């Protein structure tokens, strides 16, 4: 279908652009500043120019080649980040969808209480939980294992995910469950074949949330993990803060690179975030 450029279409498009352009600028100006650092040679990064006089990809080469002392485990740590973030994403989605499904669709008794309890977790700020969580992990013998971080992050991410998913699933027509039950679906089949596919937009949103929560977590990550080879890259970036004279351009370069995997993951799943999934289901 080719779009016709009628005055009305142009007006709406213009209105959208009026939002879109500021949004892009707002988003990209700080990012651009990082790019500026990343493509500047070592001694001109802080020169205040809008474009480096001698742009270079040297910094990327250094980062990828693990050629700086702070980045000797770059790939390993990136891999750790990925592993941990994806595990957190997957586990959180699992825990949260099952719980949201049980509470919202199976109407399990006491579901409300569970929800309230879950939300209650957030009234204890994460910073407050840090020391106790450390002790807890120590007691469970999980300290220094990546599981400790994964579980801690799942703990922190789940309540919100459950809540968001419950909100969303309350909006699904209840008739669909009924139809599935008539068709002979067990709760598990209902979950898998009807519930999950219709929850995809929300799953993408909360999945991204859980993933990024773990991806960029700092406090818990450095508390619960120890070895240089087991921490995430986000923690390793803390090395740059140790010295009053760090290679800032490398920090920015690494930061930029670090943003790309989750952005790519999000981009992959983003196309499942579409509206109107329940269109045509019921007449009401």
């Amino acid at each position, binding site marked *: 279908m080719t779009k016709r450029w009628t005055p009305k279409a142009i007006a709406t498009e213009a209105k959208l652009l009026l939002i879109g352009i500021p949004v892009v600028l707002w988003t990209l100006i700080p990012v651009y500043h990082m790019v500026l650092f990343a493509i500047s040679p070592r001694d001109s990064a802080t020169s205040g120019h809008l474009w480096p006089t001698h742009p270079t990809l040297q910094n990327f080469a250094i980062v990828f080649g693990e050629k700086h002392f702070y980045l000797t485990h770059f790939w390993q740590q990136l891999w750790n980040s990925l592993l941990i973030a994806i595990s957190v994403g997957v586990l959180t989605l699992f825990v949260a969808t099952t719980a949201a499904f049980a509470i919202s669709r199976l*109407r399990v008794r006491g579901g409300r209480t569970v929800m309230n309890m879950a939300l209650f977790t957030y009234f204890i700020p994460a910073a407050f939980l840090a020391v106790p969580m450390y002790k807890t992990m120590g007691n469970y013998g999980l300290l220094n294992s990546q599981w400790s971080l994964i579980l801690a992050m799942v703990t922190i991410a789940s309540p919100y995910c459950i809540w968001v998913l419950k909100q969303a699933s309350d909006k699904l027509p209840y008739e669909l469950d009924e139809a599935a039950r008539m068709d002979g679906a067990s709760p598990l089949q209902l979950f898998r074949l009807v519930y999950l596919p219709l929850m995809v937009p929300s799953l993408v949103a909360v999945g991204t949330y859980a993933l990024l929560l773990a991806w960029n977590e700092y406090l818990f990550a450095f508390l619960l993990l120890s070895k240089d080879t087991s921490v995430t890259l986000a923690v390793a970036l803390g090395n740059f803060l140790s010295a009053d004279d760090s290679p800032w351009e490398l920090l920015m370069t690494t930061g930029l690179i670090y943003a790309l995997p989750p952005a790519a993951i999000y981009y992959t799943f983003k196309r499942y975030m579409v509206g109107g999934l329940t269109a045509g289901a019921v007449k009401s």
Partner: protein
Amino acid sequence: MSSTTVPVAAVAPLQRKDRWQTWGRWMVLPYLLIFVVFVLYPVGYGLWLARHPQSYVHLEADPIFLRSVINTLVFLVVAINVKMILALILSGFFVQTRWWIKIVSALFILPWAMPSIPTILSVRFMLNPEWGVINTTIFRLTGADGPNWLNDPTLALTFAMLMHVWKSLPFWTLILVAGRLAIPSEQYEAASVDGATSWQKFKFISWPALKTLYLTSTILSMIWTLGDFNSVYLLTGGGPADMTHVLATLGIRYLRLDQVDLSMASIVVAMPLVLPLVYFMMKRLSK
């Protein structure tokens, strides 16, 4: 309808509700386990650490405590609301289906995906009044010195809040986008035919559907950030003159001095700030 003749049949072995309930219980179990093991236990321990009443006395004696409380409140009320309102507006923008909006939305997520340390430092560098890009450019264009961005407490706190908004706006927008996607387009069609303007569609269709999500998210966001440690710590470090501290940075500062009890106390003190909100939310949720 003589019931005596019909044998009261053996009731089905698996009772309907029980079976459904059994499944339900199995399905909340994973979360419950996590809750008991990783929430209840640590929280209890944390409260135990924050039990000393004299911590609160000490805390109050700290001259920057009051200022931090005020800053935290400003942060919560201003930054979070600005952020959420923007997110609400932008979620309306991002649910549009346009190829270029898809690209914008992929870019838009970047701030959220970036680690705090480099981004916030980068902004700090950008704002440096002597050699930062902004003031250098201002100087080059006008010959005048740009403002000393981070040296004025109000401006510095504003930037800390902007930083916070920049960083977490994508997340909340995404959540609200998901919320909007769940609204059947039929309702908008009906409203169009009923003669609703865009604003009225928002007011009468979108907002009722998003209200709970929005309000609860706002409150949660307030609790989560409680003044956002990173944005303040990395951008202003509490400066100038400790005028931009928030309770979170205060808490960490105590932790760095091994004053764990004070650190905990400063966080506990923050709770009353959110308690009214919690009450409000609980009331909302129970509707």
